[in-house]
């Protein structure tokens, strides 16, 4: 065990998959010599050579097209999109091409790509660098979307993502990169895809969250612990959603608050609410509570401070649902 930041945990995972599987390749803008603009791939080119870890020209569709093509010729690509806002440039290659490869060929050809990309608010970036864009991708059949909330999961989920023969969009939370440290095991371990995690057990209300909001939810559960016993579920994989874990929890707590950093109109929370409404509504004795960002365009840097929903908004909603 060693204390490691979220970003170091990711570097660790990349080091392990490069070492274990000679077919893995890391590429993208500035990932080589520079080690990525956040240093996520720091040292990997020196260790594994330019054939395995390399810089590309500056074009996201080109990067993802390269990945699709490498995948069908036997390689295991791990392309990086420097910031998730730039994924719009590559949306055809992700949703129109990679995600459909296995389907098109009935498995005769497939492309096992893991796309890594940082997202998430709170660090006052330039425009289009922080938006939570998972909703654009959770509606894509054939693609998994993974959003770890902590260093331990980041490492284990990234290894699972790379090992998966299905394409994965692996979203790395920008704010957590250096702000969060955990004791994490040295060497290889995996965290399963498609499975949510009960990060805190409780009996009175369930908070379903993912990404950085998991930590906000935990703060609230902690703050209210003398008043109510709150269960916190971290989705970890946001497409598909592990509804079984959610249903089991609300069968016990009968109350749920769904939290996301993205705008309310954007999908994941709505998907969770709809799954509950369809298959588990009778478990509830109060309306479904939702906490999400306002439906405006993602704010410029200053606005982030009061636009992004945090522990206060969650606490307010939790109290409302508890007192229903």
């Amino acid at each position: 065990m060693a204390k490691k930041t979220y970003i170091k945990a990711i570097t660790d995972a990349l080091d392990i998959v490069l070492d274990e599987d000679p077919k893995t390749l890391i590429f993208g803008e500035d990932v080589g010599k520079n080690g990525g603009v956040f240093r996520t791939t720091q040292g990997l080119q020196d260790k594994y050579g330019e054939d395995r870890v390399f810089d590309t020209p500056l074009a996201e569709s080109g990067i993802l097209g390269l990945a699709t093509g490498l995948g069908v010729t036997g390689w295991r690509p791990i392309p990086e999109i420097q910031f998730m806002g730039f994924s719009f440039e590559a949306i055809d290659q992700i949703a129109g091409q990679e995600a459909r490869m296995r389907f098109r060929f009935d498995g005769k050809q497939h492309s096992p790509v893991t796309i890594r990309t940082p997202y998430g608010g709170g660090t006052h970036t330039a425009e289009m660098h922080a938006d939570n864009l998972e909703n654009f991708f959770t509606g894509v059949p054939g693609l998994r979307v993974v959003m770890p909330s902590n260093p331990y999961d980041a490492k284990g989920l990234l290894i699972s993502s790379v090992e998966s023969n299905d394409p994965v969009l692996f979203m790395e939370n920008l704010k957590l990169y250096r702000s969060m440290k955990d004791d994490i095991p040295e060497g290889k371990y995996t965290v399963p895809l498609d499975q949510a995690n009960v990060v805190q057990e409780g009996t009175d209300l369930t908070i379903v969250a993912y990404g950085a909001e998991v930590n906000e939810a935990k703060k609230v559960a902690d703050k209210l612990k003398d008043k109510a016993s709150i269960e916190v579920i971290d989705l970890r994989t946001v497409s598909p959603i592990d509804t079984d874990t959610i249903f089991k929890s609300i069968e016990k707590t009968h109350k749920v608050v769904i939290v996301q950093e993205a705008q309310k109109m954007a999908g994941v929370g709505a998907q969770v609410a709809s799954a509950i409404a369809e298959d588990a509504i009778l478990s509830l004795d109060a309306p479904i509570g939702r906490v999400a960002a306002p439906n405006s365009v993602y704010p410029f840097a200053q606005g982030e401070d009061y636009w992004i929903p945090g522990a206060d908004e969650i606490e307010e909603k939790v109290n409302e649902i508890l007192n229903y």
Partner: protein
Amino acid sequence: MAQSSVVDFDAIKKNLADLPKPIQILDENSKVVDKEAFDSFSDDDLVEFMKKMVWERALHEQTMNFSRQGRMGFYAPTEGEEASEMGTVLAMKKQDYLLPAYRDVPQLIQHGATVTEAYLWSRGHVVGNKYEARAMMPQIIIGAAYDEAAGVAMGLKKNGEEAIAFTYTGDGGTSQGDSYEGMNFAGAFQVPALFIVQNNGFAISTPRNKQTAAPSLAQKAVAAGIPSVQVDGMDILACYKVAKAARDYIIAGNGPVMIETLTYRYGAHSSAGDDPSRYRTEEDTKPWHEKDPLIRLRKVLEDKGLWSDEQEDSLVDEYKATFKDAIKEADAVPVDKVSDMLKRTFEIPTPEMRKEIEKFEAKESN
């Protein structure tokens, strides 16, 4: 006119339009214009080229026939483009990886897919994509194949294979950003990729001159540092020779090449109701029919006593019989199941999909 003493943009612009003549071996009157190149082909070679073009035209005719009978799905007519399509694909090897567009079904078949599979693809059946050919399925998203060709080429190179990636798009396709990105990536990494632009004059209804101010489409490769050339796309000998030279050059480790073939689509854009009379006249089309690739080579073969009408007629009958067999075979393939569609979306189905699969399997077994 705005004049400047430091730079003469007018001269620079004029320079761009100073293009080399497209490569040609047989001219429109079937006259040999490059004797050395022509003499490198044996009589058998010439007959073989002719047969391939007759095959492609017969495929087109028979398939359009099936289409009129309502027996096809989406299919893109290829009449007029036989020299460009057959000439380039015949210069490739089976180990090469093809990334076709929707109009490149004849090349896909030449590369190893069966006609039955091509018909199943057209109808929208997954079995049509499970061919032995080393190839992607015909790309519908214009430009995407160019990006992927760079990746395939890099993969082949990393594998140490003696093979190239070759891909097609149309004149309209060169306007896509992805076309440039793909070529630029291939150039930056010096990977074995051949980019072929079949300039058939139109992107649906939009003429070539509305796509770009670039005097040639071949020039679009220049910015990516890729050598490129225009070739007479109605001259199969030239198309073959240039594609073969490109492949040799690429295999020798010199990086990618781009070829623009100057050709023409005689028919509609697709089988789905396009009416070319809305955007071009018979006068526009006539000169291209005079350049017809089959007429051009047929004359040479007839002069040499290597070809006759009877021979061609019986070949056409023979080919069409195989297409009729193919469509019967396609008819016999059972429809796809929803449970199988779900299963092939992921290698490991998601928990929700597992439930959906069960549900559909129960329905389907009734």
